[in-house]
């Protein structure tokens, strides 16, 4: 899919118009962004906006995501942290002393 983000009022207005006129290629619309279908038509609409508004329109490729797409230790960390008994404990403190990755360790690794 394509994520289309607008950075000016005019671009935002045109994005809204495209979304209204071409619902079939819009998967989801947010305030000043929208998710277009990953089709040539979706790309065509996204590129039209980009042609008109240049860098005020950002287009990104978006891939579907499933939790199983990330390594097990990351999923495990999220699961156990969200099940913590002390809601005020920051993750860093929660992880230390447990068999969990430190936040900096996670930050340094690309998916």
């Amino acid at each position, binding site marked *: 899919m394509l994520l289309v983000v607008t*950075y*000016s009022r005019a671009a935002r207005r045109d994005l809204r118009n495209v979304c209204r006129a071409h619902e079939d290629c819009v998967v989801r619309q947010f305030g000043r962004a929208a998710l277009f279908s990953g089709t040539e038509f979706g790309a065509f609409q996204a590129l039209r906006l980009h042609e008109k508004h*240049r*860098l*005020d329109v*950002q287009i990104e490729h978006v891939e579907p995501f499933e939790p199983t797409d990330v390594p097990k230790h990351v999923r495990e960390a999220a699961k156990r942290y969200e099940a913590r008994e002390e809601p005020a404990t920051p993750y860093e403190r929660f992880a230390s002393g447990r068999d969990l990755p430190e936040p900096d360790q996670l930050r340094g690794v690309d998916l």
Partner: protein
Amino acid sequence: MKLRVAGTTYTGAVVDLRTRNVGGRTIAASIRGQRRFPVVSCPEPPAVYAYVGHVHPSMGLRTRTALAAAARSRGYETPQDDAIADRRAQLAELEPPPPELPDPVDPVPESTIDGLQEAVATHRGRLTARQAVGADDEAARAALRDAATELSERETRRTAARETRELRRERARAYRDTLEKQRRLADELANLRRRARATLVDRCTETFAQAIEAVPGPVPDSPLDADPVPAALGVLRVARTPAPVVLETDRFRSPTAASDCLDAPVVRC
């Protein structure tokens, strides 16, 4: 004031142009310095004139905004002023021209590279085989060399394409970060100005109510919701009015009466 309309010069605090064929809107624009003709020489009008510098029956008025401007004309300040000046200065510095991006380069498909790597391996195998049996290896050598050259060229192009892509993304991101910052600052500024306006309006509401009672005509129930003409006249009584006010209303007995009531130079159109 001194005002020149089609060959006639008018001077004094009150000028009556009702017999002249000149629109109030034109005169008001001249007073605000937005037109050069007719020539008007007068003190610089404060910002409030943008709202109430020309009073006429078909006018609209954002009374609160105008009243806040009137308060400003009297030099009133608000606790938000420093923050407003700060955000304005920051915004003025953040006027980034869109960056120059290198032209996009078509990516070199991985399959092309893979194919070429395979070809190089094949040619190398062939060459080794020929050398093992002592056969003539000139053609095999040349084929390997060509394939290797082609592969190296494509790899160089792939690297260049990647670098261009990275550069384009980096510059676009930096620019959009600035746009985001701009948006945040503009939002903050709008909020601060709303709060400042509320402060100014609060401070002037009482004065404004008295002012609107003092202008001729029925007294409205709620001053801030009064019709545009009485509201504008009320705002003018609150404001400091060094420059002429253009009036196209029959509320006053005479232009002089209007000038006295508003404590302002008046051009009656």
